[in-house]
Each structure stands twice: as structure tokens, then as C-alpha cells.
């Protein structure tokens, strides 16, 4: 319960920051997608199922305010969290470099999905332009914020796990 409320709180604060103060750190018209980084980090730290649930919650919040319908961003972020949690058992979580390729992949995949869902079928076929102007800078900026965000998520997760250990009944 503690874990769920802490995660909901982190995602809500992040959403509020992303919609307000992030416009001041815009570079070349793109902003970093910290929500995605948080979801991917959580997936790496806690496994696919919990990553998927965190992604669903985070995407739902974006859908409610800015989505074309409820469910599009929720689906995208849920899949990001799910696939980030797949190599859960095979990696050391202390390795801060692991999230980099995962976040890069997730950011690029979600940008592509938005392009396919909202642009391709409306006849906007200039993919190289969109790649150069939005997808690439967006993904690069997201990768830059990955390490600090992952480090803080790692810290939060350690605190939560030690708090849970105290409450766990052994027998």
C-alpha cells in the first residue's frame, strides 16, 4: 500500500512538473519525457508486472488531460514498463548504464507510435523530417535525463524495500 501511494505521488508530481516548468527547459522545441523514464526505471527495478501497472497509471494521467481518447498513452507506457521489466532477473540493478539503452528504445518506440497513430494516416509522409526534428532530439533529451531519474528511483526503491522488510512476517 505504501509502495502504491508513493508511486502514485511520484507520477502525479512528475506530471504536474512536465506540464508546467518543463517548458522552460525546452531545447529545439522538445522536452524530455520523464514519465517514460520513471516507468522504465520502475520496470527494471521491480519486474514486468509492476512496471506495466506503473506505466498504465502514468499513461492514464496523460490521456485524461491531453490524449485523443482514454487508453492510447496508457497502452504505450504500459508496454514500455512491461518490456523494461523483462530482463529483471538478468541484470544488476546497481548498474546505472543499463537503463540507457532501454530508455532510448522506449522513447524512440513511443515517438514512432505517436507518429503512426496521429500523423501517418493523415497523409503526413515526411518521415525523415519528423525523425530529424522531433523523434531524434526528443529521444536524445530523454536519454540525458535518464541517469539522474534512474538514480533517484533506485534510491526510492531501496528505501521502500527496507521499509517493507520491517513489516514482513516471517512465519
Amino acid at each position, binding site marked *: 500500500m505504501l509502495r502504491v501511494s508513493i508511486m502514485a505521488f511520484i507520477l*502525479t*508530481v512528475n*506530471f*504536474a*512538473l*512536465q*506540464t*508546467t*516548468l*518543463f*517548458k*522552460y527547459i525546452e531545447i*529545439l*522545441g*522538445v*522536452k524530455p*519525457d520523464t*514519465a517514460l523514464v520513471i516507468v522504465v526505471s520502475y520496470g527494471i527495478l521491480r*519486474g*514486468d*508486472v*509492476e512496471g*506495466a501497472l506503473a506505466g*498504465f497509471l502514468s499513461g492514464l*494521467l*496523460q*490521456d*485524461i*488531460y*491531453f*490524449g*485523443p*481518447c*482514454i*487508453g*492510447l498513452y*496508457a*497502452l504505450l507506457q*504500459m*508496454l514500455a514498463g*512491461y518490456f523494461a521489466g523483462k530482463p529483471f532477473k538478468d541484470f544488476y540493478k546497481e548498474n546505472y548504464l543499463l537503463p540507457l539503452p532501454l530508455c532510448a528504445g522506449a522513447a524512440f518506440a513511443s515517438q514512432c507510435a*505517436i*507518429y503512426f497513430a*496521429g*500523423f501517418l494516416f*493523415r497523409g*503526413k509522409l*515526411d518521415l525523415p*523530417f*519528423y525523425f530529424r*526534428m*522531433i523523434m531524434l532530439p*526528443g529521444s536524445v533529451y530523454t536519454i540525458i535525463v535518464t541517469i539522474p531519474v534512474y538514480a533517484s528511483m533506485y534510491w526510492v526503491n531501496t528505501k521502500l524495500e527496507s521499509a517493507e522488510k520491517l513489516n514482513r512476517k516471517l512465519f
Partner: protein
Amino acid sequence: METLSKHKKAFIIGMCLLCAVLAFSTIRSKPAFLADFANFFVMPMQSAFSEAGYWIDDRISFVASLEHLYAENRELREQNAALLEENQRLGFMKDENQKLSELLAVDQLYADYPKVGARIIGHGVNDWYDMYTIDKGTNQGIKPSMIAIAPGGVVGTVVECSSDTSTIRTLMDENLVISAQCSRTKEFGYVMGDSVLMRQGLCRMEFQNGQNAEILQNDTVVTSQFSIYYPAGVSIGKIVDVISDATGKYAVIEPAVDLSSLETLLVVTKEFKAESEAPTPTPIPSPTATPGAGSVLVK
């Protein structure tokens, strides 16, 4: 949690299906109660963060502008003198206009519409669209498809409302189309967003006459009288470039309102759709029928 982890495949497929069902059932309109619920948590934080942002922005621009203040002040004084003179002249013209309008029994085109002032408390999260969240909703009389303006001209349209917040789509957003006309040649067309031009703070306009449209740089563009959502004659922007390519001719428009530094806007709380369906009470007399204008009456 353990049972979920045991049936991972079923879990993820079930969640995907849930998303698909949600998406199909909400594609026409999203239920407002979700936004109302989320507002309870999100809106206080958004308001606090955005006010803090505006405050810091103000301080920074104040310090940055200190050195230009003297020159700017002198420039503004000169401008002020010119404007005062012009204002006086326009005052006379307004009186004259009123008298002539009374004579012709024409309704005032630019009547005062009821407006609600709102503050922008959030910007869209992804880089593909240009949307705002404002801090007024259905409780203040705002409804979807009402128009948002700012001193200078059109900002965009209200797309969704909850009790206390609304989402605005701006001129530069891909999904917004406004019927417009060139104020000089009355050339009719549509102003639409373009994510290519959005990066430079511009939007595009396509004309009904296509290649034959009579347009020039620096022409001003206003909302047309055929629009069902917008009052006619509200300034949209000016043409900064005219481009002809394989797909046709279009104009690049610079919005009259500086959307990048916008903090507050006004929502016109009047629905024009209903009005346009009702029969117009007084037809505007056509210029050819005006006696004494030196024109021939057409039968």
C-alpha cells in the same frame, strides 16, 4: 501481486484489451468525471508550479530588460503620442460610423461578447501537439468548441472541459482548422496547424482558389463570416510567406498573439453554432443596392 506474476501473459493481454476497449468507448468524448477526479490531485500542484514559473520568468525578464528600459521608454513615448493622435481621429470616425450604421440599420458586427478570463496552468506533455490546460471549466460557463482569444487575436478552441479545467487546442496544433479570409482581397480559406511550422511558432493557410488565390506578404488574415464556431473578423495573424509547391499554394501565417509567452487568455462564453442555424434577423444591405453610390441597381 503473486497471482498476477504467475499469469503474466494473461495479465498483459488483458490489460491491452482493456486499453483498446477504453479507447474505442471514449474516442468521441472522454468522461468528465475522470478529469474531475484527477484535478483534485493534479490541479493544486499545476497551479503552484506554473505560478512559480511565471514569477521566475518575470524576474529574469525584468533583470534582462533593465538596460534596454531607457531606449524602450523613449520609443514608447513617441509611439504613445502617435497613438493618442490616432485615437482622437478614430473617436470621430467611430461617432460617424455609429451615425451611418443607424441610418443603414446595420447591427453592430463586433458586439461585446461575454468573456471569461483564465490562466494557463499546464502545457501538453508531448512535442507533437500544442495544447494548454486552463483553470476554468464548466462551472464558469465554458463548453467545448468555444473560442479562446487574447489581446491581438485568436488563440484556439476549447476541446474538452471538466468542472474546473479545460483543454485548449492552439492555432499551431495539427488538429485545429479554422475557416478564415484574407482581409484585403476577401480570399477565403482555412488556417491550420502544422507540426513542421509549429517549431518556428507559425501556422499555414490554404485557399479555396488554390493556385489562383490573390495573396501577398503582410496581408492580414481574419476569421471568416462562414465559420460556425468563430465570430467573424477576429484577427488571426499576418502572411509572412507565400509558398507554391507540387501540392498547391499555401501561405505561412504568423499568429497575431505571441503564443510562446502567453500566461492568460479569454474564452468567449457564447456559442456561435446555435446562432448561425437561426435565421438572421436583419440582412446586411449589399453595396450595389445602396442609393447614391453611383452604382446601377441590379434587378
